[in-house]
């Protein structure tokens, strides 16, 4: 599913990589607050739904070649997080949805799990 469609489903705000958003296709969704879980169970080209706003989520995305990071519960990422994401060209979005409802909506829309 295209990242722009996901953005619409979740009514998400774009923080980084505004310009390249519509080139990105998300193949899976991963949802976790613990990065080691993501590293264990996620797949490349997945978008991650998370409440963790530290730069580590960007590092994890870099290591795993994730497509995008979507922060839930309206959480704004830290400045260092945004800076690192810009440097590595990883899209960051924020949605007001809870983790549960964000997962539910995307699952219903047919995005596969990792």
């Amino acid at each position, binding site marked *: 599913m295209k990242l722009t469609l996901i953005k619409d489903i979740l009514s998400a705000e774009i923080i980084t990589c505004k310009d390249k958003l519509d080139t990105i296709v998300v193949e899976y969704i991963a949802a976790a607050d*613990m990065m080691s879980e993501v*590293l*264990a169970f996620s797949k490349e080209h997945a978008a991650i739904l998370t409440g963790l706003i530290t730069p580590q989520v960007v590092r994890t995305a870099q290591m*795993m070649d994730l497509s995008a990071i979507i922060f839930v519960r309206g959480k704004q990422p830290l400045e260092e997080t945004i800076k690192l994401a810009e440097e590595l060209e990883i899209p960051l979005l924020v949605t007001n949805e809870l983790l549960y409802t964000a997962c539910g909506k995307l699952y219903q829309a047919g995005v596969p799990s990792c």
Partner: protein
Amino acid sequence: MDEVRSLKILEKYKEFFAELLAKNIMTNNPIVLKKENTIREAQQIMKLKKISGVPIVDDNKRLVNIITMEDLLKAMEMGMIDSQISSLGDKKIVTFREEDDFQTIIEFIAVYSFGRYPVIDDNNCVLGIITKQDLLFAVVSKLSVLYLHDERRKKVLDSPLSILIKNSFDKNEPSFLHEINNQDVNSAGEGSALLKTFLKNKKFDEKLIRKISIATYEAEVNVVIHGGGVGKIIANIDNESIVVFVEDCGPGIEDVEKAMKPGFSTAPDYIRSLGFGAGMGLPNIKRYADKLVITSEKNNGVKVEMLFWTKEEKSS
């Protein structure tokens, strides 16, 4: 005060000393006296044998009392040193049985702090005696075995040869080297990112690079969270494989087997608020690496060696 503290230190090694029993620690056939002996005789024996207490037994060698330095001093004070030992009152005696183990003995000694503990059998007969000196001697003997064990491990850890691969290569001429010097969990991962870029430039397969990056990243974060934040990432590329070493000089892993269990974590709580400490780090590394060796010695750091085959025909 100090004695209690030193006994607590021994507590830490309880497991190692589990097979040490009273019968292995005690002095056999200790000096004993009868209640018909005088206090002066006791004093002379204690002076001669340089001991500070003597069990008192009956004709069948059964324990009836014990005489200590304290008794001697009291007797001297009251001018009763020529009285028979029977004139002394009964006192509390803590005894052990032959099969009592190290832990039990330690627990009692910590509470009672008597100078000596007779070891008795079912009939209350005195078989031996345990003094703090006996305990110390037993512990030291055991420790000398432990020392040998650690010396051997030290030789392995200090070796420049990789444990993993048969042909030696020089760790001083690696393909990739990154010094980790970072106590901030938030910015950990820089080394792994650099390694990833390095491997990308060498045009290795994307999937392979991802496996290596994730495993190295988990190892690097471990160095920062658990290993004191100071360490190295070294990578060596040869015809068939890429070997990555991640080592630190931190406190080491106490029980590597336990540490490998998914979900087991020794991370402090604040680490969980940073998204780590799920206990998946080492299991993740194991999953992604084709071969993995973790060596660790308490207070001497951790060395993680990971091998990744670069050709697909190879299987672990």
